[in-house]
């Protein structure tokens, strides 16, 4: 049975911290979302996202700090937003469902939101089915 393969880039300061809080509070979410902790969402390059899709990811989720002022590195989240927005336009034009790539602002205290977003996203990916990667 196909299980979605989802890569989640969480920024260390906000989404990553929220993930830890979610752990401490024993909340539950879909295990097919594999977290990679990055210093800032500003570090996530479009190449990393596309590399994930090419290597079998069915969905890529990015969690960062709320705009306009929460980013520990001041404006990394804005850079991430702009790059991901343009990348989604590119995917959409090429006929790849843009919903497979999602960026969310999750502050360190919003563990509940993190769990909701992760579960929602994995549900979306289940609905969309495999991207067509190796294990399809």
């Amino acid at each position, binding site marked *: 049975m196909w299980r979605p393969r989802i890569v989640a880039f969480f920024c260390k300061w906000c989404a990553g911290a929220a993930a830890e809080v979610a752990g401490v509070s024993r909340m*539950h979410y879909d295990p097919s979302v594999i977290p*990679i902790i990055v210093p800032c969402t500003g570090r*996530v390059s479009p190449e990393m996202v596309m590399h994930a899709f090419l290597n079998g990811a069915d969905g890529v989720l990015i969690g960062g700090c709320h705009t306009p002022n929460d980013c520990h590195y001041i404006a990394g989240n804005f*850079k991430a937003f702009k790059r991901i927005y343009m990348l989604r336009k590119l995917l959409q034009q090429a006929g790849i469902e843009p919903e497979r790539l999602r960026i969310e602002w999750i502050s360190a205290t919003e563990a509940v939101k993190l769990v909701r977003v992760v579960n929602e996203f994995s549900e979306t990916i289940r609905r969309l089915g495999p991207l067509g990667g190796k294990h399809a």
Partner: protein
Amino acid sequence: MRLGVFVCHCGVNIAGTVNVKKVVEEALKMPGVVHAEDYIYLCSQPGQELIAKAIKEKSLDGVVVAACAPSLHYETFAKVVEGAGLSRYRYEMVSIRELDSWVHIDKEAATDKAIRIIAAAVAKLAGDRHYDMIKMNVVKKLLVIGGGIAGITAALTAARMGIPVVLVEKSPTIGGKMAMLSETFPTLDCAQCILTPLMAEVARHPLIKIYTLAEVEDVTGSVGNFRVRIRVRPRGVKVEDCRLCGFCERVCPVQVPNEFNRGLNKRKAIYIPFPQAIPSAYAVDFEHCTKCGLCLKVCPTKAIDLEMRSEVIEDVVGAIVIATGYDLYPGSKVSEYRYGIQNDVIDSLQFERILSVQGPTRGEMRRPSDGRPIKRIVFIQCVGSRDVNHLPYCSKVCCMYTAKHALLFKERVPDGEAYVFYIDVRASGKGFEEFVKRAQEEAGVQYIKGRVSRIYKDRVTGDVVVEGFDLLLNREIVIKADLVVLALGMVPAIDRGLVEKLKIAVDQYMFVSEVHPKLRPVETAVPGVFVAGAAQGPKDIPESIAQSMAAAAKAAELLLRGYIEKEPIIAEVDRDRCNGCRICISICPYDAIELSEGRAVVNEAKCEGCGACTAACPVGAIQLRNYRNEQALKMIEAVLTVR
């Protein structure tokens, strides 16, 4: 490459859901891994020794620890690794507890996820290199923002350690809210007697430079080298020449509400907030001064200069202490209590001014509206505080200063009656409970457990009628009082502009967030920026003083050492591949990249290692140390390879 992977059971926290044995088995198959083992509690002493032993025996050159969250034990294992002679940058820690075992039920999926998380760490570790800590010199000077008791204490503590201090205060004098108080609990010693000597010492101390009527306009740079711009508004009076004779005040035609006395009386356009003000000189309120020039004529020493301009002071400091203090929650927001001087419903600071001998009533117990002597007084606690519609938190100090107010009132008016409407009396400090008991029993203050529902002025008798409910006697209660004092909640006085300039984190009430209440209570997330006093949260004077000394001590730890060591995980440029296209310098939020001979170079002091430039560089010439592009791609492949 000889890598070691250590997987922790954390009792059953991890082993309960993750099949640790299988994880270790899979780890051994990962590229470069020569050793993998699991242990029940890696963070324990035997656990740590196990790792150190493995490093030495297997001569490992890289370690991955898969256990709890790095925010908990990254440092612990870093020290173990360094103890075993390996660089801390050849060590990665990943959480398979908070991010995996604790959040999943399906054992098989959790195990698979743990393996992938470890595989990513191993892939990253393969590319990690050692870097020496970055040493940067530190300017031995401290900036203290806010001249209240917290700011004064921090400045003095630092100066006494030989650290030059720049003290910036928004109002014409230092002293802050404490200067307004009459006596302080629980010792009832007079506030001025504690404060004014400290203020004098600050004024005299050669290492402390005070700027009043001043605000921090801009802060750039980073820890050890903050470039600060301070805007000083014109005082209108030359401090050294003012003899405090007061002739100018007498002739000044302008009358405006006196903010030091919280509007209970008026003051002139040229005034001194209170006699022991530091700097001890008059100041001109340029907002209301009509420049009629009468004061100029009468000033014996020609100290007044109405043409003074505001000026900007630039300075470089090594650290910053935020001591911006608090304000009371605006009484108008709690409309049902009819807050207002003419209604004889005042706030606690106003009552402090009535109590104070320098106050508008010279210490006599007379009402602010009509001067009628106060025979019966009602104190209402938790006004705004512990209220979801206003301030959900408890402001901590109101129960104590209300008990003090009631006690002092009964001393002044032995036959007077004092009532206190409260929810719970919170007197948790040393000698606090006894102090409240003294007020209740010796001074006969009536404590009524219940909320006040309505307050109105009886037009005929002039009484302030307070209708409330007594929970203990389970009956309504109506008190016709002369005066009502509201214990309004505490809110931070810091403004949004300063928060953004300093890039510090604040909570939803604008109290400055400390990094960790226990681990780093007086530090903010921005290295080199500390916080003390009410700016960090509601607290009383003794706590503010203790916290200010702590903040000064932490700052001294940084400033006295003369250099700071900085995490070397910053961006790095491969100068051959850089084409000087200027894209990285245009997006760096810290201006940490400069161009020399047409190619980019990273300023070690400024770069915070966020990596935004590395993802924008068109040819990948700038890379984040130990988070290079090829490492990131390898991590992604490791996470996604099909088991």
